[in-house]
């Protein structure tokens, strides 16, 4: 229960809020298009070649990297505190912390690897 320990809460909160902004602005249209409009045939799905061309652009890859990575830290922060407050599992706090931020780091690594190796 030390109160003086230096904390990285500020950095984690920055990642949470940046991820929240990215998720708020960008995720709905992505889910609408790729999750509903294309699979259900409301709109004609873009061809494999067109998507491949888009993902070939460095700017699109940076965009996709940020779209995948930062919202995971948004999830980690909210999910951690939901378990903490909602279910009152305070005794598992360290395990939850590790799983949430570990998951976000893993997702970031996978996104970085996939986009880096996207020939």
């Amino acid at each position: 229960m030390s109160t003086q320990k230096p904390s990285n809460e500020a950095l984690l909160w920055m990642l949470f809020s940046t991820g929240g902004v990215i998720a708020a602005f960008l995720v709905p249209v992505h889910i609408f298009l790729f999750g509903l409009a294309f699979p259900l045939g409301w709109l004609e799905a873009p061809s494999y070649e067109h998507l491949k061309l888009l993902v070939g652009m460095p700017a699109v890859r940076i965009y996709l990297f940020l779209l995948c990575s930062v919202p995971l830290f948004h999830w980690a922060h909210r999910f951690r505190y939901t378990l903490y407050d909602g279910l009152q599992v305070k005794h598992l706090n360290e395990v939850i912390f590790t799983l949430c931020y570990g998951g976000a780091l893993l997702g970031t690594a996978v996104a970085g690897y996939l986009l880096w190796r996207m020939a």
Partner: protein
Amino acid sequence: MNSSTAKSSAAYTEFHPRWYRPHVSVYWWLGEWRYLRFILRELSSVFVAAFVIVTLLGLRALRNGPEAYARFQHRLQTPTAIALSTISLFFVLFHTITWFNLAPRAMAVRWRGKRLPDIAIAAPNYALWLIVSVALGWLVLR
């Protein structure tokens, strides 16, 4: 209060100080709509994470070639995937709306000595959201 002052003040009292800690049920958020809404808002992040996982699977399929991507598209057409997408869209829209509506609380912008009304902060967010969404759709569909 830090622990040293708590200890020193305890020395002056005749009785051992007891903290007042009312017991809160694990299901405290089920009783009232605004508490449930708070928990649902927080849980919208789970669907954000699910979206990222599906997107990463799509990128992997895209990298693995046209057949792999066709299989990925086919899997997105299954009823389970459609149900997940529908629920995800609802939760993510809930996140977007609550996030934009909170923006005026997070940024208290003053102009000519007066605080701007909430709508003046929230409305540009909604407008930008619309523009960004249309622009992304145009880029993908072009």
